[in-house]
């Protein structure tokens, strides 16, 4: 459990990190653009009053994809060291889905 308090002196390494970060940043900008696009599609479908049977699943899927983008790119779940966060987030999503399913299906009859 040693702590890496000693900072990295090696400039080459530093440059390498910077480059890597820039790469990631590019991904994130692309992600952002796609998220905006998804949002536009979702709003567009609703405003255009496309049939509900078609719209509802589409906008829910778009929302789910946006969330995955947020989790994996903006919140860096795609990087290493995120196994436990992933376990807990997915467990949370599992419990969340059960909760929502129950409350939407068996509260009125």
């Amino acid at each position: 459990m040693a702590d890496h308090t000693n900072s990295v002196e090696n400039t080459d390494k530093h440059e390498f990190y910077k480059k890597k970060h820039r790469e990631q940043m590019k991904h994130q900008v692309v992600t952002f653009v796609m998220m905006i696009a998804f949002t536009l599609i979702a709003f567009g479908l609703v405003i255009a009053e496309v049939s509900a049977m078609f719209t509802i699943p589409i906008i829910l899927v778009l929302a789910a994809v946006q969330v995955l983008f947020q989790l994996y790119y903006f919140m860096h779940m795609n990087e290493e060291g995120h196994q436990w966060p992933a376990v807990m987030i997915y467990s949370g999503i599992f419990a969340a889905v059960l909760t929502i399913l129950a409350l939407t299906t068996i509260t009125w009859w």
Partner: protein
Amino acid sequence: MSTTANQKAGIGSVLWDYLTTVDHKKIAILYLIGGMFFFLVGGLQAMLIRIQLVVPENEFLSAQFYNEVLTMHGTTMIFLAAMPLLFALMNAVLPLQIGARDVAFPFVNALGFWLFFFGGIFLNISWFTGGAPDAGWTAYAPLSVFSEGHGVDYYAIGLQISGFGTLMAGINFLVTVINMRAPGMTYMRMPLFTWTSFIASVLILFAFPALTVGLFLLTFDRLFGANFFNPDMGGNAIIWEHLFWIFGHPEVYILILPAFGVFSEVIPAFAKKRLFGYSSMVFATILIAFLGFMVWAHHMFTVGLGPIANSIFAVATMAIAVPTGIKIFNWLFTLWGGQIRMTSPMVFALGFIPTFTVGGMTGVMLASAAADFQYHDSYFVVAHFHYVIVGGVVLGIFAGLIYWWPKMFGTFLNEKLNHWFFWLFFIGFHLTFFLQHFLGLMGMPRRYWTFLEGQNLDLFNLISTIGAFFMAIGTLVFLFNVVKTQLKGEKVSGDPWDARTLEWSIPSPPPFYNFKQEPLVRGLDPLWIEKMQGNGKIQPAEPLGDIHMPNRSLTPFMISLGLFIAGFGIMYQGGMWVLAGIGFATTFGSMLYRSLKDDIGYHVHKEELEEEGDGSNG
């Protein structure tokens, strides 16, 4: 800065010490005191209930007061007694079992305790301000919404405060287990108590938010005119039932899993054998937790969800019996071929096995959805969950307390008195609750203030009350034992039980930094391995060096105090809004103070450590 010795000190400085402590071992003692206090309060309420039901048409308590007592009995026992007592054990033992010097968030740990404590006090203040909550510990809407006075407000806000505390404690244990394990302590070498506490913490993490929301909705309905559960405005009472049980069912496993863990420590230690089927025990624990999340609606079979939903939840519930059965048989086969010592923790563990088996049996019977139409909300259910919670959790807590008492306090409880305690409590328990199964089937619904004559329910109720007195006397014996032992103050060695796990490798009570050097773990039951293969001492994983320790802090106390004060403001409104202002200012001010001040702890230096012996259990 490094105050190493626990010199005799005045009351004031002891009090200050405990108010500001972030040491998990002292927090354990705080949890123990708080939990025991509320356990006695809840027990007193139980006695009132049994006295009221000793004869038919008794008028010992009024109807309203009886409802308050039964509500507070349930609420107190679950939230303010069982959970904190388990947290006491977890705090005392879990970091030691994984070879950690501290928990991951010492500050948050203290905060968790103080939130629980103030929540509990808040809830009980209701007795003195016009009536306690009276809608049952489940607080079903809309009864809880229509309930007059402020009783249910105390319930909602008090549980909200202590619920935050529980959530934080849960996260703390999760991260402690993941990040703080000593070298060599892989997941599959962790003691079962650590495993079950870990899994229980996972359940806390996902179950408590549902309660948080439920309590918020209830609070808003009662205090701010919201309409979640008000049928006239389109609200729906079933939402409360779902939210409550989405929390409430995992809560049962939050309680029982750590108790399973205690037995999985006690039984191997006193059978002198390693736990039979360790990996399947771990797997069963995880499976119970997973299934425990999908079965909450078995509390709602009679609500009218329809046969499809009922069938699904019935089958899911029955499935839980499988991993639980695995556990029972693994314990039995740990005993098989062992050298069983009848110490008092072991007697508790052995008393647990048949008792809990009965609780599990009735659990499967209740899972049978159609049959539950008869059992539901009758004394059968009362008997069932007392078999599980008293026969499982309470016996587990006492087994654990007695087992780890030397480690927590450095003293040894009198074995003879412990055996007396066990037999009085155990016999009293079965007298009280076994016949209640039949009472339920004979037509006695639960939460009945009184029962009428001529229904043939008199005799069993009388016997039940007699049993309750046995349990009360047993508990008094235990208290007497505690006082006697602590007054005598005889010191014990680090390993008085000749046990197997890491916490017994250091002195009793442990020094405040726990391990002088990080231990090197070479397998399951590390101390046993060293006893068999080495010199009985755990090898260090690092050379002696400075130890980093967190600073003490009053902030957790202040944050909790603030919420406590704010609760009154929110509840009484009007001129009392000032209190809400003061309370929230205290809370957020303390939080701000905490985040603005650099708190990087201090070091115990190598030189000081060298003066203190070798840090083994000697």
